[in-house]
């Protein structure tokens, strides 16, 4: 048993060797963030949302919903995009990207739901929605069920690597076959709840700034989740190939760069579609006059800075085969999606109230979210170093 733990968990090192390996500034920083976030979690559980957060009757949803759920789920879309393309539509060239994509979706969803537990007032009742009381008219009901199903789907998609790690080959083969079906189901489920996250705000038309409110909100959320997913694949693969180069079997630099450009092309197309839809939307609602207000400037900052500029950059990058520029664009796109989700849920929501009454997070809210991000990164690293992912 102890040799199994040593082999599988500590990568063949003794515990003290393994620990010593982690004595560097990055891990110390991660450790500090985790300690702070555990403190915040405990504080929230013991004293409640009131003392721990800046949430109020005016702002019932804050950073945890905005960042951990809306941003987190959008950025966890790699499984929706790349894994589907590879497993379902046979784009074999991108096979190397599929497993890490599935893993990042799995970890992203699991930790998003974990973070949600701290935001729910009665977290211990969360399973009511699955089997006890159904609110069929609620968008949130659809989201809850789809989260539940999608996490199972991600587990199935990821499990071949897991069972291989455990050396259970028969289970691995079984789940490999199941994986394709899970992917097919996953497209429907992921598409459904990514758009539903935008549809959450459909019901609050009088509370949202007109520039961000639209009947197309579900489509905007779905579209931006797709380009967020592709961008995350570009960024993750870049980082993973830099840090875990030794883990990648027969790493081919030329091949990798070619695929990155390919992803850049896909990103370009979807960003253009999104931009055109945004233009149609603003024309349809005749919202042009809002653009010359402070909220309008902020809106243009989001659209021009993080959608339009990446489109231009990507056009150049693809034309000149510049992978570095693709990566820069992907980073911009990811930042843009973060900004968009925060804008919809916090800035555009209750936009008419005075600035002094606006919500801003407490340090505990920030530290809990930072802790979640740290846990995601550490879990990703933990699994990638042990299982055949890259």
């Amino acid at each position: 048993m102890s040799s199994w733990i040593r082999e599988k968990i500590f990568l063949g090192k003794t515990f003290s060797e393994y620990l010593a390996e982690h004595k560097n500034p990055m891990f110390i920083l991660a450790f500090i963030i985790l300690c702070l976030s555990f403190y915040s979690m405990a504080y929230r559980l013991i004293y409640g949302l009131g003392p721990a957060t800046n949430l109020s009757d005016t702002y019932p949803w804050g950073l945890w919903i905005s960042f951990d759920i809306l941003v987190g789920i959008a950025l966890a879309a790699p499984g929706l995009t790349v894994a589907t393309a590879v497993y379902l539509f046979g784009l074999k060239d991108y096979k190397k990207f599929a497993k890490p994509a599935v893993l990042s979706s799995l970890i992203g969803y699991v930790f998003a739901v974990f973070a949600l537990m701290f935001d729910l007032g009665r977290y211990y009742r969360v399973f009511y929605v699955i089997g006890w009381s159904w609110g069929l008219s609620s968008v949130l009901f659809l989201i809850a069920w789809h989260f539940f199903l999608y996490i199972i789907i991600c587990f199935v998609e990821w499990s071949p690597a897991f069972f291989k790690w455990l050396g259970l080959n028969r289970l691995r083969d079984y789940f490999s076959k199941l994986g394709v079906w899970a992917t097919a189901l996953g497209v429907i489920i992921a598409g459904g709840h990514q758009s539903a996250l935008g549809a959450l705000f459909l019901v609050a038309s009088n509370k949202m700034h007109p520039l961000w409110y639209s009947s197309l909100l579900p489509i905007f959320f779905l579209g931006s989740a797709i380009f967020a997913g592709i961008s995350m694949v570009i960024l993750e693969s870049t980082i993973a190939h830099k840090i875990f180069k030794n883990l990648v079997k027969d790493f081919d630099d030329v091949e990798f760069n070619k695929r990155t450009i390919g992803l850049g092309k896909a990103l370009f197309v979807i960003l253009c579609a999104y931009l055109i839809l945004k233009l149609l939307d603003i024309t349809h609602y005749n919202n042009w006059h809002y653009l010359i207000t402070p909220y309008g400037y902020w809106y243009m900052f989001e659209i021009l800075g993080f959608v339009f500029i990446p489109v231009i950059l990507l056009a150049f990058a693809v034309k000149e085969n510049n992978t570095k520029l693709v990566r820069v664009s992907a980073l911009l796109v990811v930042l843009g999606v973060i900004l968009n989700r925060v804008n919809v849920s916090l800035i555009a929501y209750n936009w008419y109230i005075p600035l002094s009454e606006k919500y801003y997070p407490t340090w505990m809210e920030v530290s809990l979210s930072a802790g979640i991000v740290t846990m995601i990164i550490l879990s990703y690293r933990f699994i990638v170093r042990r299982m055949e992912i890259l």
Partner: protein
Amino acid sequence: MDRREFLKRTLISSLTLLMAEKSHATGKETQRGNRANEINWAKYEAEKKTREAVQGESYAVLVDITKCIGCRRCEWACNEWNKNPNKPLSEFEKSASEKPSVFDRIRRTDAETFTIVNRFYKEDVTPIYVKKQCMHCLEPACLSACFVSSFEKTKEGSVLYNPSLCVGCRYCMIACPFDIPAYEYFEPLRPQITKCTMCFDRIIEGKPPACVEICSADALIFGKRSDIIKLAHRKLDENPERYIPHVYGEYETGGTSWLYLSPVPFEKLGFPKLSKKPDTEKTASFLFTVKVLEVVASVPLVYAAYKAISSKGDKEKDE
């Protein structure tokens, strides 16, 4: 009480005791443990079993803003009836004349206040007092938003909240166009939403809501909704110079069980401008579309999955 229930309660009460200390220090310890919604829900459940259906149609209240004098007795009566934290009646009554006054600030409902009166001003600086409470929509956004179905629109007209199902997601607060549901932020273990019940527990006994009963300025009138709407229009016809020609709540967001008459445009009194179609229709059509798309998309996806598996099988045979 079975054993599991007993253990659960013991655990909860001991934890609550443990946590009580801290929240006392914040001074907001009263913003928790509200019972009014729970009591009304229990009455509703009992009512459902014993009586077939309410005779006739639902009730409504007409608020004539021109008549309100800002005595805040409705607030006092509401607190009294619902056992919310309260103060002597005289303290409420003097607010309109004293300086500084609670009226200096625009207030909203909170976890222990189901109704409030706000003060606005006409152009000639005469004050206008506006009572605010749950509008008891005919198509409640809170109800449609709740993912565990813990709201109910009763035949009497009340929109009731059931604390025994609530998960505490607070989506109802996002959804409500009138910013009514409030949340017990200072309750760590068993927080709930709190809101006006239209005094469901009084209505079923044949009594008007507590706020209506105490109003001596004739600003609140309780009755069947169709009668109330007729009355509102009669008032508009008889005194066109007194009101703007609009019965707020007749059609707003699909209609509400609280209706308002005002001397100035409603936007100036903090009422949201709402269309006749409730936003819940948008949600409903979204959910319908998603379901249709999911079913339609499943056909090509299953086909693709089938193809992928069979081609994979071939490849494995080749190897």
